[in-house]
């Protein structure tokens, strides 16, 4: 294969790169979003209800130990190929850090502050919304940050089951033994992970100060 100039290569691939980046962001964003909507209430729930704590943290932990490619393949017979099984798998991976950090954050609120809230006459709901969640928020956001970075990485694999994203380049590059194509998927994915990590880290620090 004759080697194109790098500039020409990038210019030629730019529209597709843009489309695949958006797909990748969509996969990551949607799955992390669903995991936030499920994980935070779950974390609050297991804080209040001690008997559920072990099973829930255990179950979300087990998902983490399943190799991502295996989980994606496992979901195929049930959900077919495409975006749907990818979103399910990514959401499952994103769940653990969010549930665990929500629980840890709430658990870390000082007992003195909780007693003050009770003594002053907060209802349980007011205590949760005005004291516990605001104080736990930096830790919860740290969990969302971890989940996002995990999702960016795993989303590259979901190209194998036809969900699109930057993994498509890697996939094709591997099949054609074309290093540039592999890098065209891998480098932007790595940059995306770093940028999201940085941005959410900033948000986290801002909230911790507040």
């Amino acid at each position: 294969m004759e080697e194109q100039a790098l500039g020409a290569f990038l210019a030629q691939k730019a529209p597709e790169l843009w489309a695949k980046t958006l797909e990748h962001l969509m996969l990551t964003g949607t799955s992390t979003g669903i995991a936030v909507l499920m994980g935070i209430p779950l974390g609050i729930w297991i804080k209040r209800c001690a008997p559920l704590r072990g099973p829930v943290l255990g179950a979300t932990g087990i998902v983490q130990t399943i190799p991502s490619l295996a989980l994606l393949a496992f979901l195929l017979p049930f959900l077919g190929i495409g975006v749907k099984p990818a979103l399910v798998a990514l959401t499952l991976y994103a769940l653990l850090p969010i549930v665990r950090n929500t629980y840890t954050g709430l658990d870390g609120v000082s007992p003195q502050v909780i007693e003050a809230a009770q003594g002053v006459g907060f209802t349980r709901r007011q205590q949760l919304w005005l004291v516990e969640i605001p104080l736990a928020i930096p830790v919860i956001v740290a969990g969302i940050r971890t989940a996002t970075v995990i999702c960016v990485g795993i989303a590259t694999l979901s190209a194998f089951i036809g969900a699109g994203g930057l993994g498509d380049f890697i996939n094709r590059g591997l099949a054609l033994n074309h290093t540039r194509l592999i890098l065209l998927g891998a480098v932007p994915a790595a940059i995306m992970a770093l940028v999201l990590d940085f941005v959410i880290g900033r948000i986290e620090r801002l909230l911790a100060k507040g």
Partner: protein
Amino acid sequence: MRDLSLEIADGETLVLLGSSGCGKTTTLKMINRLIEMTHGTIEVDGVSVTEQDPVRLRRGIGYVFQGIGLFPHMTVEENVSIVLRLEGRPSKERRERARELLTLVDLPAEHFAPRWPRELSGGQQQRVGVARALANDPAYLLMDEPFGALDALTRDSLQQEVLSLKERLRKTIVFVTHDIFEALTLADRIAVMHEGELEQIGTKEEILADPATDFVQGLFEKPAKQLTAFREHL
């Protein structure tokens, strides 16, 4: 805790005095149901506390906590007016009340209202704690060793503050301490507790003149003895 029977008159300051672990804080927390009692009754305004909604009960009783107990994520102003917020009062009223209360506890509002609790000294934080307890204009105040962690000078100035608030506001106060001098400074009556039991209750004159048990006698004699011992040593 057993055989504890107390009556607290409106407008008086009752000090629960005793060493650590004698049950004075537990007694205090049973009044606003932070700790539920296993048997017996406590009545506030003639109604047993177990029959009152704990949230309503607590909003009607100011509580000043041992240690600090301010909300670290709220400004001084938000801390002071938090009970009004819980009650859903408008923000303008909350702001005005917070300013009024800060002035009352000698913290100029324009300077302190927007600050965070962590920016304040221990004594200032505890003044904020007192202001917060007064926000809903409760008839009763419970104070759980509020000045225990402060240095002697700061403690003294806060004790004077409580005395003057007492004069001005006519609250019924239950004050827990292990410090005899604090008890003598603030109390209308003192209840001496030991190992979960009430040893003696009376005015300071009564207790000093006629200690009911050896424990009470020892408690009040000890500081005097220590002082004499020091003098001799010097």
